[in-house]
């Protein structure tokens, strides 16, 4: 793999190779918890933290591990990191932990984490792996929040409901009632709503990509950014 600039790594993580919209990985938590913004944000941040920690750890030990045992080592490290994060969430975000429940532990099985460990962190230095983990995680968290916002808005007519679970009692005021007297749109909250919503978001991303490809290319700014 040709050496990518940090900017390219970030672009891949956030957009071109987005975990949710392009790789379509981690669907189980993606679809299950995104019934509102706060749940999506909570799981998104937990996944982000896991990705960063696992990428950095695995990059740090990449010259130490032998190819024949690398997968078990990766899995063990990822599982330990996720368990530690789960305990910490239970201690500091007890109610949110209760709502997200099993899906925090299931971050272990989110293919994107082992995928980044194997495809990126095991071959790149710590700094680059950090950027990769951070942007991949941000891309995934953004997808969770976006889908959560869409479903919450359509399903219950609010945004940031239950924000106090994450940000403390003062955050109760974050709740936005977008539509007064909204009767609710059940489909958006139920699992099919998650699939339809994800489909629409992927379609939106593809449309944007196609528009961009068709538009006359601006002077490639990337050329000025000499690779490091």
């Amino acid at each position, binding site marked *: 793999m040709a050496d990518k600039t940090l900017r390219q790594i970030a672009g891949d993580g956030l957009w071109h190779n987005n975990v949710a919209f392009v790789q379509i990985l981690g669907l189980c938590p993606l679809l299950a918890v995104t*019934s509102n913004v706060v749940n999506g944000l909570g799981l998104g941040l937990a996944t982000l933290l896991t990705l960063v920690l696992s990428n950095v750890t695995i990059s740090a*030990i990449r010259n*130490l*591990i*032998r190819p*024949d*045992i690398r997968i*078990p*080592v990766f899995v*063990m*490290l990822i*599982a*330990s*990191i996720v*368990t*530690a994060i789960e*305990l*910490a969430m*239970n*201690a*500091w975000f*007890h*109610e949110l932990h209760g709502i997200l429940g099993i899906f925090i532990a299931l971050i272990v099985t989110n293919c994107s984490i082992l995928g980044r460990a194997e495809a990126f962190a095991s071959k790149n230095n710590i700094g680059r792996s950090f950027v990769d983990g951070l942007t991949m995680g941000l891309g995934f968290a953004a997808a969770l929040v976006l889908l959560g916002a869409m479903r919450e808005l359509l*399903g219950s007519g609010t945004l940031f409901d239950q924000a106090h679970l994450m940000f403390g009692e003062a955050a109760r005021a974050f709740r936005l009632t977008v539509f007064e007297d909204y009767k*609710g749109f*059940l489909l958006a*909250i*139920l699992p099919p709503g998650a699939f339809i919503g994800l489909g629409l978001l992927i379609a939106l991303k593809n449309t944007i990509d196609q528009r961009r490809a068709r538009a006359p290319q601006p002077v490639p700014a990337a050329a000025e950014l000499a690779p490091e």
Partner: protein
Amino acid sequence: MTMPLKKMLLSASLLGLFAVLGTSLVAFTYESTRERIAQNERDTLVHSLNALIPPAHYDNDPAADRIIVTDPTLLGSPLPQQVYRARKDGQPVALALTAVAPDGYSGDISLLIAINLDGSLAGVRVTTHRETPGLGDKIEAARSDWVHAFTGRSLRDPLPEKWKVKKDGGIFDQFTGATVTPRAVVKAVRNALDYYQQHRDTLFDGSDSAVPQQEVPHG
């Protein structure tokens, strides 16, 4: 291709080393969060108990004054259920017990049911459920007033044959589009009252010391 023994041993020791590292990380986090998590769980329990039994009515610590009972028929689950006893000046005031409505629309509905000494309901709360959002989830106190309809009720009010949803000839409301959920909850509450009536003489027995020690530190 045979692997030299030395290489195999090296791989095995590396794997072992990382197992130790991973386990240490988990053990360390567990130790440093344990008390906080226990405190959180305790706070949550006290909070939900206080929502049902006003704290002014008792002077003991019901979260610690608990016994464990099992009754698959009336409490809805083969698993042990908790009974938290509230007392004032050593006299029984009320108790809160956990129970399960096993016949919800999508599986078990866990309940916390508080019963006054005289057999009337101090209140009912749904603790966990997987009922359909927007339909069955009106059993949550946060989403509708429905569950408050139990407060003050007992086996004499209404009479046992009226302990049903309206559709079945009882007095409790069902929800538009969801009858199974409220029916399951009404039945579970009624069964819990039956259980209380059958066991009321013994449910307040057993001093704190006879109670199985909780893993929660007293604080």
